[in-house]
């Protein structure tokens, strides 16, 4: 059912992908791809236009040579100079050089910062580099997730045999699974597979095998079976094997609804995994290249 709700709540979810005030969607380290509706994470986060990459590259070299010793090579602050990524002055500069220029040229002698006789184009390049740094810090939707394959593959195999092998096989449906997904996506996917593309979703497509099926039995005794299309407290809907859509009210009129959700065990396991289990299972799945 999650897929249905996710679909219905699509706009809300897309908002949630990157917003602290709402739920988050599954992560992956796959490069972002534009989705239907023109989802753009920078727009969501109201991050302005990215600076010219060539200027950023030039600026980084200038920065490291001239500024990095005091302000840190990443501009997050060093032994004698403050953080520049979250500096109010730098944030107001917005990559223009107009705010940081006078500071670079005149120094802050009272605080021990000397003058740097850089040219205007050089200052603009440094400004572009600093803008790229603050934008990267603000763009949490594209933070790179680090090494997630830290578990014990043997322990993971044991866990897999005990909890997963009823439905899955390393040589059957999961053969080469690690070649299909990056490790972050695989971790997310084995915990609970996504079954329908979400607005703004990155990474691999949903898996149709995970779709729930339903048997609906009417008061007359007649029953229908098919793939579950919709279910709430009031209505059930399904598609039968010919692709025809059916829906029935289910409130108080004796309609029986039996849902078979192939992902039920995935949801149950979430309550039981230790973090070590999670890491071990991933390490094991990563052996299935």
């Amino acid at each position, binding site marked *: *059912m*999650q897929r*249905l*709700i*996710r679909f*219905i*709540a699509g*706009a*809300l979810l*897309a*908002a*949630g992908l990157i*917003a*602290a*005030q*709402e*739920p*988050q969607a*599954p*992560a992956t380290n796959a490069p972002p791809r534009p989705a239907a509706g023109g*989802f*753009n994470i920078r*727009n*969501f*986060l*109201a991050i*302005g236009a990215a600076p010219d990459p060539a200027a950023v590259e030039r600026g980084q070299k200038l920065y490291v040579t001239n500024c990095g010793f005091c302000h840190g090579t990443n501009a*997050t*602050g060093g032994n004698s100079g403050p*953080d520049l*990524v*979250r500096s*109010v002055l730098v*944030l107001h500069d917005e990559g223009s050089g107009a705010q940081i220029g006078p500071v670079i040229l005149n120094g802050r002698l009272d605080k021990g910062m000397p003058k740097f006789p850089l040219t205007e184009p050089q200052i603009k390049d440094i400004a572009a580099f600093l803008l790229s740094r603050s934008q990267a*810090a*603000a*763009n*949490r939707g594209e*933070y790179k*997730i*680090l090494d*997630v394959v*830290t578990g014990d593959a043997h322990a993971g195999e044991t866990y897999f045999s005990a909890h997963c092998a009823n439905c899955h096989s390393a040589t059957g449906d999961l053969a080469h699974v690690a070649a299909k997904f990056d490790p*972050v996506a695989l*971790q*997310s996917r084995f*915990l*609970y597979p996504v079954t329908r593309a979400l607005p703004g979703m990155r990474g691999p497509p949903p898996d149709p095998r995970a779709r729930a099926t339903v048997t609906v039995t009417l008061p007359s005794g007649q029953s229908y079976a098919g793939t579950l299309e919709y*279910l*709430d*407290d*009031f*209505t059930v809907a399904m598609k039968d094997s010919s692709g025809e859509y059916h829906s029935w009210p289910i409130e108080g009129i004796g309609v029986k609804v039996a849902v078979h959700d192939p992902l039920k065990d*995935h*949801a149950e396991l*979430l*309550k039981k995994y230790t*973090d070590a289990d*999670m*890491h071990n299972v991933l390490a094991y799945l990563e052996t299935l290249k």
Partner: protein
Amino acid sequence: MKFLLLCLSAGLVYAQALDPAKLLQPPTDTWPTYNGDYSGRRFSPLEQINAGNVRNLGLAWVYRADTGGGSPFGNQIKATPLEVNGVLYFTLPDHAWAVDARNGRELWHFRWQTKGGIHIGNRGVGIYGNWLFFETPDDYLVSLDKNTGRERWAVEIADLKQQYFSTPAPLVIGNHVLIGVGGDSLDVPGYLEARDPETGKVQWRWNSEPQPGEPGSETWPNKDAMAHGGGMTWMPGTYDPNLNLIFWGTGNPNPVHSGQGRKGDNLWTCSLVALNADTGKMAWWFQASPHDTHDWDNVETPVLFDAEFDGQPTKLVAQASRNGYFFVLDRTNGKHLVSAPFIDINWSKGVDSRGEPIPNPAKEPKTDGTLVSPASGGATNWPPPAFDPNSGLFFVNTSQSYSVYYLTDTDDRPEGYGGRDSGVWSQSALKAIDYKTGKIRWSHPFRGEGFGTPGVLTTAGKLLFTGDPSGNFIAFDPATGKILWHSKLAAGVSNGPMTYSLDGRQYLVVGAGDMLYAFTLPGSE
């Protein structure tokens, strides 16, 4: 006598202005604040629509809030409309509207020219006499003439370039307009301000972090961590006129997911604070999530009610926190009475002597991920809960959810969020909580899983109104959880439902996506 004369003259001056006395009464013909009244109970004394006739409830009107498109978030009405003298006032980011509360006819539509900012939502307006106030994503407090929708003035309340953005509905108390701020992207400090309704000037300011050397500073490693400590104030609080205290929730500390640069409890982030309404001076505080690393803003409505506790009539404040705990405190002094999880959580080692949860460091975000319940969206979120004095139950839409939390910035001085979380699974349920024990009296899991935790309204008609994750607007029996009525809307309920009575007719208004729906009983007089 002098008092009477004052009231009379005020009445003459404000012929159609909001009568300030309405702010101190339960909402009937007027819904003058975000929560209907200062208590945050979202309980209406109206009972024309009741358990006996709710099955006849039908559509009165619909109104579509058309912004002309352009929002990357889509248009979700998160505002609870105010209703004053037969007119509804509500917002979307950069937009405010007045519509006729009887038939949904648009009276005016105000458009703000934005400079940017995150447009995730706006909770609505505050009202003072004839003046409306709302906040914008680019951090202005805008005042409009409620009769014309014309701008009186706009003042900057936060720095957009530091990635602040503003979403709360201003709360008007006396001649104070209380405004909170938001913004998590670049680790800025939170604050709450009282502004003058005539000029927009600052009257007082409360900071979410102490200054170095002040009490509370011992919960931070250094000045720099405090200066980037977060604690946003992005939801309207509540107010007890007798104590003259406001109750306000604060958001997560920053950087959000990487706690290594801010070791300590990080006061007063993820807290509930009680402040003097006229000075901003803090009377007490309670920290729901010491040293939070999971983005669990503690901004959910602090609900005020007076009820029996341990055999004594007690002034209580109750909060269902995003971190999964239900808290009840004595609101005169902040002493905790109940701390109990309302979903299955796995991040806490229990509570300490103050009733505050003890976070398990093993469940902080790690580079290879930790599986934590709840997800960052929380066990509940900003959509308002309700308290029903008749059944003595606290109602909240909940989410049993799991997420993998990753630490992405391992530097001693992380920046930005410093991590990510990956939502895995969630299931929504409406829960009725016994305020005396925190025990779940009844729970209605919504069929299937979903992200929605819509707002709740209770009424003296022995009804509870809320939405489900499938886009149904539903009336429950608050005592039992039995469904009595529903209507399928074009989108999921996106705000807290509200109600009012005009000309002897009770209306029920709810937002769903970019639509407002009004329901009433056919032919009711």
